[in-house]
């Protein structure tokens, strides 16, 4: 599959769902979305789509298309969608729901709040609660991104298909976030929040700072493993292949 298509899948299915988390976590975002009841969709014509469901302070993300969203942003091509998400170039989507001008205006503000956490400044990160939340967003992106790449990227497919079946639990100590990735076999992975039902392998980060350092490529994970700051137990070959896909992901989202 071509690069732009894979990247659009990552943006829509791994990155965008974080907006639902931001809408719940961030006080500014909560204010913006207060009283919202409806769906906001991002889609590429004939390509991936994601819709966010807002319901009076609650927000969830669904990685599929709805026919009649309250607000809808549709891109003609994956490349157009990627331009918007990376900020590299101008991309004007077709907008559905212009008769909801307040929600449209609010959503644009909400997008800025997502950016605030995805590209955080030093002051944002200096708050430990924010840092933990950002690590949660990053882990969410990574674990979902691995599942997407294992389906779409040529090299990730190879790694996925040669992985043993089982589940990897990613855990940041002491209080999370926790996510799990299940290899159902034949390279098909599913990602979910929370602990694995029966983890075949556990990848445990000593603390938020350790996870932060690894996710931002500031620290060498192999050295952290040797020092015991990252602990891997169980089915190491599964973690090894998943780590290989994680490396591929970092190249897409660099």
């Amino acid at each position, binding site marked *: 599959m071509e690069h732009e298509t894979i990247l659009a899948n990552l943006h829509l299915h791994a990155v965008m769902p974080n907006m639902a988390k931001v809408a719940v976590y961030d006080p500014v975002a909560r204010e913006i979305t207060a009283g919202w009841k409806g769906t906001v969709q991002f889609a590429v014509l004939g390509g991936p789509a994601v819709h966010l469901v807002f319901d009076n302070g609650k927000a969830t993300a669904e990685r599929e298309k709805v026919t009649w969203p309250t607000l809808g942003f549709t891109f003609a091509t994956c490349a157009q969608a990627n331009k918007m998400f990376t900020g590299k170039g101008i991309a004007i989507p077709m907008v559905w729901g212009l008769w909801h001008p307040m929600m449209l205006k609010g959503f644009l503000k909400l997008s800025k709040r997502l950016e605030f956490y995805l590209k955080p400044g030093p002051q944002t990160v200096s708050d430990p609660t924010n840092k933990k939340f950002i690590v949660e967003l990053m882990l969410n992106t990574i674990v979902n991104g691995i599942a997407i790449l294992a389906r779409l990227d040529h090299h990730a497919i190879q790694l996925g298909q040669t992985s043993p079946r089982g589940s990897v639990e990613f855990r940041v100590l002491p209080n999370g976030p926790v996510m799990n990735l299940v290899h159902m076999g034949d390279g098909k992975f599913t990602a979910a929040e929370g602990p694995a039902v029966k983890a075949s392998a556990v990848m445990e980060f000593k603390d938020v700072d350790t996870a932060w350092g690894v996710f931002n490529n500031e620290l*060498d994970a*192999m050295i952290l*493993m*040797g*020092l015991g700051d990252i602990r891997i137990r*169980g089915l190491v070959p599964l973690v090894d292949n998943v*780590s290989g896909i994680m490396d591929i992901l970092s190249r897409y989202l660099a």
Partner: protein
Amino acid sequence: MSETKTYSFNKSLELFRRAGKVIPQGIYGHMTPALVVPGSYPYYAVRGQGCRYWDVDGNEFIDYMCGYGPMVLGYGHPKVEEAVAAQKAKGNCFNHPSERMVELAELLVDTIPMADWAVFAKNGSDMTTWATQVAREYTQRKKIVMVKGTYHGAHAWCTPGHGGIIDEDRIHIHSFTWNRADQLEDLVNQYKGQIAGVIMTPYHHPTFGDSVLPAPGFWNKVQQICNREGIVLIIDDVRAGWRLDIRGSHEYFGFTPDLVTFCKAMGNTYPISATVGKKELMNAASKVFLTGSYWNSAVPMAAAIATIKALKEEAGVQKMMEMGKLLCDGLIERGKAYGYEIIASGPYTIPFYRFGIEDDFYRQQVWCSEVTKRGSFFHPHHNWFISAAHDKKDIAMTLDHAEAAFKVVKAQFGD
């Protein structure tokens, strides 16, 4: 059985912390702590004697990895060290090879029935890669076939690593499943007249999994296909060589390859590898450039000559088999006493053990680290190596360590 005090590894960790600042990964490759259970294993060694070695924290280990294979007679074996000292006194690297090179080649040709010639390098990867080039030169074909999940070294065409390789590195590399000669036949039909060489280990010894011996008739079938199609059969005996049969592991399994690569145990810890081949490939071999700054150095060649002679004189392989069997029987029996079925695979001299109850290594990781912390180095994911220096007392002590570790596993997992 008395309870033993368990080791700590503070100095190893301290040194590793320093290493992390100046060496990528701290320790890279197969010795990376990430492949064992970090914190429960030594990272740096100081010295060795016989089948034992000591780490930087002063902990003593009975060694069941033998430096991941190179130690076969025991650390500091007198005959090897004597030969090394004698050559060292004369020198190591010159403008020319030494007499040792010719002597070693003659010794290999005399020892290994299929060998008509020999060449030398430093590592297994040097030789497996070169052997594939010889196959290509001999056949004037491009493709190389290997077995899925087999390790042939760290070069781009075969590395198990993910980084720094491109699709083109492997465009002519194809693989089939161990013991599935029918799949090899399919590949041969698919790429008729295009396959230069088939490279395989004498039995299947993947990391993180059971070793698998050749099924009856498998090697005959592989050899038959290669002969029929004019494909060079290359045996990667880097890991198993000198531990199954002094004449090469192919003799143990009863077949005759065209090229065989050796390393690991060949020089009893001194860096040397070799390829031996049939005379019909000698001309092709001479056309494939082969060299390295230290590949002609005399000291490791002197070590290799002494090692091979000592293995013959001391019936080293037989002794390793006996000690390996003793260990195997003992581990199975002690495991059983705690309600665990221990699955043993591979030859006694290069065994792989795991708990029958699991396929995710949780118990294995705890058990191996607990044994190691008591003084017998057990790797949780890689096959082990027995040496000719292990004796009954060593095995008995190790079985005590293993039993104490079974107790810990039992308590922790509540099985």
